[in-house]
């Protein structure tokens, strides 16, 4: 893509000389830079520089309060990978990511198919599913924190009155129930968003193609599997990339709902970074090293996903 960086003169009415055209193009390029300047300033100042700085921090001894104390490579990385909870948090984060991605995309697609016909009721349904996505993840987590609480939450009495549970249900008390309770919250909060993305994808499928499949005698299921799904691939790929990235970086929901507990069983990698940097250990160097590890993994995962999607499309 950077191949056509050269300044190309815009099409102008005939009758101008070459130097005049070049000067006009230069003026336009300058104006372009002028309009792009705020973006450039923000991107360089608050993105490129911090990324470079985090790289430097990851090889420096950098306590939270006293700042840079000189080079400490590769000890930060050794400490990061050797952290007591490093592998536990990696395993948990991957497990959470797989569960959340499968559920969110599966349900998002199901909901999108369910509400794509236009009627008054599907409009109500679509709005109901979308409303939670207006809430912040932190607000939603606080809401579910109360909803799940054994003292005031309505779910525990409800389950008991339905005969599904004997005692008070502790939604956040065991490692498994804490994980699934958080997954439920995340599905509630994000299903609408993925439904919307997939609805857009569904509407991009030309109806002639579906018509043709129907004419050829395909039933609904056959049409879905061999026409809709393959044509929906770009949207599904976009959703997967967004969902995997978002889930690998999960923080708010676990910070608020479980604080990583019980017994650090729901500690995600980003929570570990936060804890190392700001809670107790106060070691920004090791936290930066952990961040770099996460960054590299994320870039690799995303590149792999994009590549898989591209080769898939060539079939």
């Amino acid at each position: 893509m950077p191949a056509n960086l050269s300044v190309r003169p815009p099409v102008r009415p005939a009758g101008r000389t070459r130097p005049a055209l070049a000067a006009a193009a230069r003026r336009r390029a300058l104006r372009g830079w002028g309009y792009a300047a705020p973006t450039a300033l923000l991107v360089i100042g608050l993105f490129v520089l911090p990324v470079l700085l985090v790289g430097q921090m990851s090889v420096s001894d950098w306590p939270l309060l006293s700042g840079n104390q000189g080079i400490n490579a590769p000890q930060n990385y050794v400490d990061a990978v050797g952290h007591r909870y490093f592998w536990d948090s990696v395993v948990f984060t991957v497990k959470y990511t797989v569960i959340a991605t499968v559920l969110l995309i599966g349900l998002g697609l199901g909901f999108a198919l369910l509400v794509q016909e236009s009627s008054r009721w599907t409009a109500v349904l679509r709005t109901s599913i979308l409303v939670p996505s207006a809430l912040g993840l932190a607000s939603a987590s606080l809401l579910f924190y109360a909803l799940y609480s054994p003292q005031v939450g309505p779910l525990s009495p409800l389950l008991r009155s339905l005969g599904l549970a004997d005692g008070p249900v502790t939604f956040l008390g065991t490692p498994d129930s804490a994980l699934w309770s958080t997954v439920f919250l995340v599905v509630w909060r994000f299903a609408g968003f993925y439904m919307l993305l997939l609805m857009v994808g569904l509407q991009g499928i030309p109806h002639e193609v579906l018509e043709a499949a129907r004419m050829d005698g395909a039933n609904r299921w056959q049409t879905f599997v061999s026409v809709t799904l393959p044509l929906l691939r770009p949207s599904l790929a976009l959703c997967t990339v967004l969902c995997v990235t978002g889930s690998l970086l999960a923080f708010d929901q676990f910070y608020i709902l479980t604080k990583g507990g019980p017994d650090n069983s729901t500690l995600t990698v980003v929570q570990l970074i936060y804890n190392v940097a700001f809670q107790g250990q106060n070691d920004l160097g090791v936290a930066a090293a952990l961040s770099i590890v996460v960054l590299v993994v994320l870039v690799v995962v995303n590149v792999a996903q994009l590549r898989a999607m591209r080769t898939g499309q060539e079939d």
Partner: protein
Amino acid sequence: MTMTAPAPTPARPRLRQVRAPRARLAGIALRTPYWVLTGALAIVFIFPLVWAGVASVAPQPGSSQVDGWGFGNYVTLMEYQAGLPRYLLNSTLVSGLTVLFTLTASVLGGYAFSRFRFPGRDVLFLLTLAILMVPYATLLIPLYVMLNAVGLQNTLVGLSLVLTVFQLPFATFMMRISFDAVPRELDEAALVDGCSSFRALRTVLLPAVKPGVITVGLFAFLAAWNDFVAPLILISDSDKIPLPLAVANLRAQVMGIVDYGATEAGVVVMALPCVVLFLLLQRHYVRGFMSGALKG
């Protein structure tokens, strides 16, 4: 919820024509499970919100509203530390500044990326999108150090600038494709008529990209209003924290005893503007999405 009828998109009626005969064949017998299933779905998604609203004014042991219905929990919230008005003001300032910064950068940037050729254009655009790839936490640690170095630590302006950067990939992409969707003849005609490029942007293009601007603005507002991690790391003064952080802190006010009533009231105060804004702007929001994704 009567204002929810979404803008019909061009493709949907055609899809319906294809399905209609089948749906009729399926008959009423198949419709009943459909109603039950979709009804249950709607309830699952709406119930937690309704419950939070009801529970925040319902009597509850251990909260500020023990007997009868009333607004005791909201009174607690009003008086918690710096007080609800202060936290609302902080949240409003942060959200307002973030929307302002995001719209300024992305409208001008989108215009530049869509209409001008300049050296470094593609690199800058890709760099902007690359912000998506970098984890929040990875950036917040160096930003914490950098904002300290330039004296913007613990300020709402610093927080807004950081939040703006995280909005930029989506906002810039959205504005670029919005401008791309407007025929070039429109602004070229204005330029030939002697408009400056800025005037062409303001008077001719801006009205044409309004749905994109609304979508970007809404996203920036919701993200800033709701953000939790950035203020958690960047703001240390308890009178400067925005609402979500204040409510999360309030929850842990007394060791071991959680004031669920005040927490619910806090959730309602946080969620209400978002839900109202979402319902009001739903049509624009969905349409902005549609036009964007169809082009992309």
